[in-house]
């Protein structure tokens, strides 16, 4: 069966367009829109995915590649945010999808494919964060060729800066502060905050992905934001 016979109804990459979400922050409720969009896209995909998953389980690689395209933008974004490095993000991306491919036979449609693949990615990212904590590399700081320290997160400061160096500098400074504040969270708090704030997922789904309850995810989010507010207030 040729790959072009798979219609792509709603790429989930849609959820992960934070530029639009960020811009809508003037709204009364900025997250409402992204949440709705996320869940609608996820619903559309669920129907669409079932046949793709079955094909892929039969060993059809083209079908698996179409599935990958549905989710890989969000996966890469999550990995990039949590690892703070392009090469680490690429490694997590690669490992996650290869793992999914190898274990696709054991996927029994008990949860959505989206939840399943995110569970794999979050586990890999949590491992990565824990390893980094063990190595005492709390802040995502690296050393460049000239021996200067720089924040890895800064490398990805987005390209919105344009021609205003002052604003650019302020944005970078803010990015550094946020990066430092985020690195003070525990891996689990960081993960819950990331999935809720930057990926607009429902706490129920976050709980499902992290093998815990909605209530625990809710408490973790509360703790994470309290810590972040405290840390950012200290830095001002």
């Amino acid at each position, binding site marked *: 069966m040729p790959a072009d016979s798979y219609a792509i109804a709603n790429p989930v990459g849609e959820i992960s367009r934070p530029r639009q979400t*960020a811009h809508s922050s003037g709204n009364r409720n*900025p*997250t409402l829109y992204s949440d709705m969009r996320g869940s609608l896209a996820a619903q559309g995909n669920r129907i669409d995915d079932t046949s793709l998953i079955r094909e892929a389980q039969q060993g059809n690689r083209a079908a698996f590649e179409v599935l990958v395209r549905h989710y890989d933008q969000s996966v890469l974004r999550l990995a990039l945010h949590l690892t703070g490095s392009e090469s680490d993000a*690429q490694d997590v991306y690669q490992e996650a999808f290869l793992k999914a491919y*190898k274990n696709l036979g*054991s996927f029994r449609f008990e949860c959505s494919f989206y939840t399943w693949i995110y569970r794999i990615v979050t586990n890999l990212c949590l491992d990565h964060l824990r390893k980094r904590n063990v190595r005492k590399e709390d802040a995502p700081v690296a050393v460049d060729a000239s021996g200067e320290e720089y924040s890895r997160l800064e490398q*990805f400061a*987005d390209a919105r800066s344009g021609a205003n160096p002052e604003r650019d500098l302020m944005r970078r400074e803010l990015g550094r502060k946020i990066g430092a504040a985020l690195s003070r969270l525990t891996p689990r708090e960081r993960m819950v905050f990331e999935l809720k704030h930057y990926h607009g997922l429902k706490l129920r789904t976050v709980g499902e992905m992290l093998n815990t309850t909605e209530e625990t995810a809710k408490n973790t989010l*509360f703790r994470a*934001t309290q810590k972040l507010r405290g840390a950012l207030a200290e830095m001002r």
Partner: protein
Amino acid sequence: MKCDWVRQNILFYVYNEVEDDARYEVEQHLARCPECATELKAARKFHATLSETVAEPTPNLLAASRMRLQEALETTQQGGLWHRLILEPMTWLRQIRMSPALAAVIFIVGFGGGIGATYNFLAGHSGSYTATAYPAELTSGSSGNSAQPVDSSAITGIRSVTQEPGSNQVSIKYDTVLTQEAQGSLNDQRIQQLLLFAARNNYNSGVRMDSVDLLTQAPDDASVREALMYALQNDSNPGVRLKALDGLSGFVRQDPRVRDGILRALISDANSGVRMQALRLVEPMKTDSNVRSVLTRLAQTDQNVSIRSQARTMLAQMPEMD
């Protein structure tokens, strides 16, 4: 008491995680209580601040990750398949060892099946030789069979694609084991399927060009868009890529995947004409941060002088972003 409860829930209110009735209560309270309203403002400001500096994977990073994954997938076996291939026959063998009668049955069935398959193969082979003498022609509307989808695995190539002037009737000659012809309107599912096949698989670039051209007239269909994206990325003929680009031009605004595809073409297409056209298409979207970063890159590194200067002009005209 009420204030405590509201303050504990204000975060979840901002994140749209409170039930409808609780939401109503929070809103009622906020309208009356200025302290809690200030708290809400602070929570929103905090939310907006954290959303301000978001690291985004660049189109390059995404493309590189996809390529790396594709390479790895080529050499990776699915675990499920291994289980089926290795474990299931093992279970069978264990049973066979214990039951000689079953082994005999399997042997006989296998032997008989083999003879049957050989017989069918020979019969089918001679049939196809006689059939080649009668090339089939298929027309839409007059016969009921046009609704049946074409079995694309049986297609070996598309010979020609022609459109009758002034109508949306299309005629396609394609080879299966024998050459066939299909005629029908552009909306015909069978015709669309053949066009999609031709746009991807044909060895003759003229046919690919005609197919892509016709697909761009076809209705707004996800699989058509997919085929155009494929042609833009993979077709060896720049003319076909240019046609695909034209077909995609209507979706630059609404479909982020199309936009990313065009950005990839801007960075990596070898033909400067294609890159030039892609640049024209992304112009209305130049405020998108991905587009910006690609423009910045083009302005510095593109081999073509006029593309570099065009990209620079577009960047210079860009409005200030918040």
